[in-house]
């Protein structure tokens, strides 16, 4: 049973450590970039490392880093930019895909409306994406092999609705599972056409309550902590 002295000591410990840490608080650390964005970039780097590890150990791929040294993530998405480091994915010495971060793709709705000009509503940014090899600019939705979104902050129900909308711009629901570009990891069959794999990683455990619904649409929801 806690005594009143214990409560005072615990409160004092909380106050002391937080006051002593105020100079490195999120408000101070953020600078020109909000702390939740920095938190997101750190998590994105963690997920990128996890994906590369899994493609290597579970899928049997070889990953080569191109333009190495400093890995550069982007605050804002862009078309493919090969001046920044990216990754080549090989299976049995054949190049099967290229991994980029914070990169845009042309949406399914853009393809269906057959527009001649591209507006901001026609493309979306993926945190981590594997495209078919050799592409430039904003690849089409059919060129997406693996689409990955990372969420480092707390998950709300609206987050899941956003994920569903994203999936809609990548592929249509296909009742018969289609073969993906992968044999084992992340998955070999998916209920989507084209058969891109859409993964949503969240640091927040409650995302798992949406897992079964997401899978219906070919979205793999994964709770991953750092």
């Amino acid at each position, binding site marked *: *049973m*806690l005594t009143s002295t214990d*409560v005072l000591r*615990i*409160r004092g*410990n*909380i*106050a002391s*450590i*937080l*006051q*002593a*840490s*105020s100079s*490195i*608080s*999120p*408000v*101070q*650390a953020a*600078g*020109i*970039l909000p*702390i*939740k964005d*920095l*938190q997101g*970039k*750190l998590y994105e*780097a*963690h997920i990128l*490392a*996890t994906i*590369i*590890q899994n493609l*290597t150990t579970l899928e049997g791929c*070889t*990953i*080569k*880093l191109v333009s*190495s040294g*400093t*890995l*550069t*993530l982007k*605050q*804002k998405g862009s078309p493919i930019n090969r001046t*920044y*480091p990216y*990754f080549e994915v090989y299976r049995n010495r054949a190049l099967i895909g290229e991994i980029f971060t914070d990169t845009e793709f042309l949406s399914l709705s853009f393809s269906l409306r057959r527009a001649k000009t591209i507006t901001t509503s026609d493309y979306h940014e993926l945190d981590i994406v594997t495209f078919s090899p050799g592409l430039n600019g904003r690849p089409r939705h059919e060129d997406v092999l693996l689409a990955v979104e990372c969420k*480092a*902050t*707390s*998950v*709300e*129900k609206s987050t899941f609705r956003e994920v569903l909308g994203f999936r809609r711009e990548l592929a249509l629901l296909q009742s018969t599972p289609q073969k993906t570009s992968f044999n084992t990891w992340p998955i070999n069959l998916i209920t989507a056409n084209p058969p891109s794999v859409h993964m949503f990683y969240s*640091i*927040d455990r*409650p995302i798992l309550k949406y897992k079964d619904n997401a899978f219906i649409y070919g979205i793999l929801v994964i709770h991953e902590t*750092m």
Partner: protein
Amino acid sequence: MTNEQAGAILTELIEELEANGFGEVVRQVRIRLEEAFGDDGDILEISNRQQLKFYLSESIQILDSMSVSHLSEIIGLLNEFTQTEQPINEIRVALINEQYYNLSELPDYTAIITVLRNIQSELSNE
């Protein structure tokens, strides 16, 4: 630990987080609280003890996810599973103003996390 004692510690935690620049942590915990208990409409009925334990565990995880302490492990993993002539030695973010933010400049919240974990441990049997 009585409900009143838990309430006093919880209030201290929230007020000190807010007062010292950690309001983002409180904001994220509140969203998680709503997600965890909001479905049944009984968010207002959870005890101070439950709320305190929730705030402690979630604050620890949120601070951990903002902390630089994982960076070397991430870089190590990237280098372990990629073939390259020049290993990755740092990770930076290209900002929209054409400047860069090196993730090694992120704060290290290990000291706060240690204190909160000690309190969590002390209260676990209460």
